[in-house]
């Protein structure tokens, strides 16, 4: 365990008689540890003197597995990185390979990606906030957001065919164009999202227990957060005004008008509120995207070297058959090179560091998991706090095992 040099002596511990710290094991099988994190705590009474956070219980060999298939065969694995918002991981990887190949997909496809991605972001934030509320005893909001998440999943299922793990992204487009009812369904879904957002806030923000356990707990210092590599809501709550969608606009995010909520103290309450506000901003983005999205036109990149031809042609013309064979049996071949492509996922900057040797198989796929670094910063958040404060703090980080341990 690392030496805790930055331990804060709180008053009551100073008054206590000196005593040996108690070593307490939390997790990996602990309801609040999401089943995949182990914390070894040194407790002085109830005050956390030192903590050793041990991830890795859900290491599934993502990066190694990517080095054996084709580039498009990576998508099922990316689904299971952040399994609360798989679509964002899909899009992130598509954009990374497209950056490697230096192509951009047609506008309609980009709007499609934006809308699906923002829906995924909403379900991600809802899940995090609802779950951390539940862990503090507020069970009803949890059930409400799960209800909404199921509605979102129904829309995603109609579009992609799967509730959660869509494997819907492709290099150079999406697996399928939008369905006829896509616009209507999303438009019909949005009011429900807004309503439940309000309901959840109304319930929780008048709950004294909830506020007491969230406010002023798990503070995160700005400079420390930067050095720790925090991104996303965790960083924004600490007053770091960064959002890849705005700072380095990818896809069409420079066309939308949205704000980036920023917290002040970096405590759990700020993280909660930042996520709630981002849900509203995502709704705004979806509204604008739905208006701007062209109703017809291609979704996938036209080049047959990148995207699969129509099945009809594959069965009837030799050209399409050849393209299909080459893409399926050998895979598309990005040029030799190395890129780092980053997008704003539910937990922050999701980066893909790709190395291609010019072949149809990835040479190296490094994913920069946002919550890996957010979880790293968790140690300094809970040092000096009480044992019970681990629950809201850890919950508000939204550690997703698949993404953190890969």
């Amino acid at each position: 365990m690392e030496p805790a040099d930055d331990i804060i002596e709180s008053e009551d511990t100073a008054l206590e008689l000196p005593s040996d710290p108690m070593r307490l094991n939390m997790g990996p099988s602990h309801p609040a540890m999401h089943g995949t994190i182990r914390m070894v705590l040194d407790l002085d009474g109830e005050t956390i003197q030192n903590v050793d956070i041990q991830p890795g219980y859900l290491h599934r060999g993502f990066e190694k597995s990517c080095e054996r298939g084709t580039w498009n065969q990576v998508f099922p694995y990316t689904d299971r990185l952040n399994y609360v918002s798989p679509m964002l991981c899909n899009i992130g990887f598509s954009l990374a390979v497209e950056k490697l190949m230096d192509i951009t997909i047609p506008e309609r496809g980009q709007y499609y990606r934006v809308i699906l991605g923002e829906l995924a972001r909403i379900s991600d934030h809802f899940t995090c906030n609802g779950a951390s509320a539940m862990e503090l005893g507020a069970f009803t909001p949890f059930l409400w957001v799960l209800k909404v998440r199921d509605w979102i999943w129904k829309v995603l299922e109609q579009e992609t065919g799967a509730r959660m793990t869509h494997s819907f992204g492709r290099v150079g487009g999406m697996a399928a164009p939008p369905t006829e009812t896509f616009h209507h369904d999303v438009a019909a879904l949005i009011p429900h999202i807004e309503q439940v957002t309000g309901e959840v806030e109304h319930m929780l923000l008048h709950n004294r227990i909830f506020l007491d356990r969230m406010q002023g707990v798990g503070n995160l210092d700005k400079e420390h957060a930067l050095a720790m590599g925090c991104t996303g809501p965790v960083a924004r709550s600490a007053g770091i005004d960064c959002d890849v969608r705005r700072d380095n606009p990818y896809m069409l995010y420079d066309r939308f008008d949205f704000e980036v909520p920023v917290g002040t103290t970096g405590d759990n309450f700020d993280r909660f509120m930042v996520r709630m506000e981002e849900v509203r901003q995502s709704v705004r983005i979806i509204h604008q995207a739905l208006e701007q999205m062209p109703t017809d036109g291609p979704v996938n990149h036209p080049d047959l070297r990148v995207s699969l031809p129509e099945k009809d042609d594959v069965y009837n013309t030799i050209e399409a058959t050849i393209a299909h064979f080459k893409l399926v049996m050998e895979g598309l071949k990005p040029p030799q090179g190395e890129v780092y492509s980053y997008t704003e996922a539910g937990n922050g900057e999701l980066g893909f560091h790709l190395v291609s040797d010019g072949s149809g198989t990835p040479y190296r796929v490094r994913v920069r998991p946002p919550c890996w670094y957010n979880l790293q910063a968790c140690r300094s958040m809970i040092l000096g706090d009480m044992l019970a404060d681990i629950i809201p703090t850890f919950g508000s980080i939204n550690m997703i095992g698949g993404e953190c341990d890969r």
Partner: protein
Amino acid sequence: MATFKLDGEDITFEPGDTVIRAAWRAGREIPHYCWHPGLSVAANCRMCLVEITSGRKIDMPILKWDAKKSDYVPATKPKLQPACQFQASEGLEVSSKSEPVKQAQGAVQEFLLLNHPVDCPICDQAGECKLQDYYLEHQGTPKRKLTEPVHKPKGVRFGPTIVYDAERCIMCTRCIRVCDELAGDHVLDMRERGNRNEIVLAPGRELDHKYSLMTEHVCPVGALTSRDFRFKARVWFLKSAPGVCNGCSKGCNTHVDFDPRYGKVYRLRPRDNMDVNKFWMCDDGLMTYEEAHDNRLFMGRVGRGEAGDFVGAADAIAEAAQALKSVDGNEIAVVLSAQNSTEDNYALARLGRALGATRQYLAAKGGWEGDDILREADNNPNRAGATAAAGSAFAGTVSDLAEHVASGDVRAVLALGSHTAADTASLAKLEGLERFICLASNGGGMADAAQVAIPIANWAEAHGSFTNSAGTNQPFKRAIPAAPGIEPGWRAIASLAAALGHDLGFHRVQDVRAAMKPASADSDTTEARA
């Protein structure tokens, strides 16, 4: 050295080189179908058209479609030249990537695919097909022709080895040229013209000369397929290891194509080696891959025929050591094999010297006739290597050995490999012998005659080397892993030696090769060291 510029890059060429050949030597590929480095120039596929940017411009007037005017307008385009026929000259500047060239390549590609059947799912060439590769590289556009493609004969039997599909054929005439120029047998020719054009056999003939598989090998598309390889495997799943053909003492370089999933060799292909086999191999050589799996010894055997019972390799080695212990050195005969790798032979010779055996015999195959193209008269890949490994002169062949056994001079035989030219009569003489150990990868011949048979890996399952009749030592590499418990010959021999109380010090194949070096140079030194 004279040079010319290809896409701005200096390419050196020898006098008489064409542009495409000079580029090929320099490792630059200009797309081509009908050109083959080993064949004469036909220049009929037009895929290798390039633009000559130096010298006087030759511009041809054309009519170009103008979308704005929706009418044809006069324009010019440069006269392109086939790189396979254009002589390279000092200071020449060639572009194989300029816009007109790309257009031409795309047009040729589209033309070749006009009537091509949708056969990739059932075509053995799929995966190594030039049409597929060049489609993605040089065309990439969907089909524009909407009418029914022309239909031609499919599945025509050309001979015992080759089947022809006229619909897939692009009429590059490589097969015709390989028959004419390699085999010297004008059995194929072309008839009709335009989209009726097809390859035909000479009347009353079959494609049955000794190099018929080379027609399939040079065919850039799936028109000619080998009846042996047809529908056996998909080349996407095959891997390939560098090998050396064990058909004859020419030592043609091969690709051993195997499927790593099943550890099975599916075919051999010629590997370029300008000093030995250029680009070619003969049919019999290509079919030697079957020995990799036919009639293999997977277990050791103690006892002959019905009486023999099968044991593990280790037990067989122990049995052999038991049999050899009680025999005096000069009564042991060591039989090297011209069919096995130099490493195995050398290890056995070393063991023989360690045992004090003075009699060395050579087992070799027979029954083969050569020609003046590739095939040597001797069908043993490693006679030279075995001789070098022996270090001293041989006391004769297996039939001589049989005589010596009958006369009682030899009371124990330690043989390598099962192949022998000796007739059954002489083998029958050996079958009387109580102490007859044979290390072999395949059954039959001496392996069946032996009292103790020890299984070893064959040429596809172990690293090794053959020395061909020209005296060049050519190493080859393991393709597939040997069956569990089966070791390479030299290692089996080393463990046999260990069982007999001699340490040959062979642990890795490098050890054997390091010890061999003086062996090939001078035999006395190895005698001293042994």
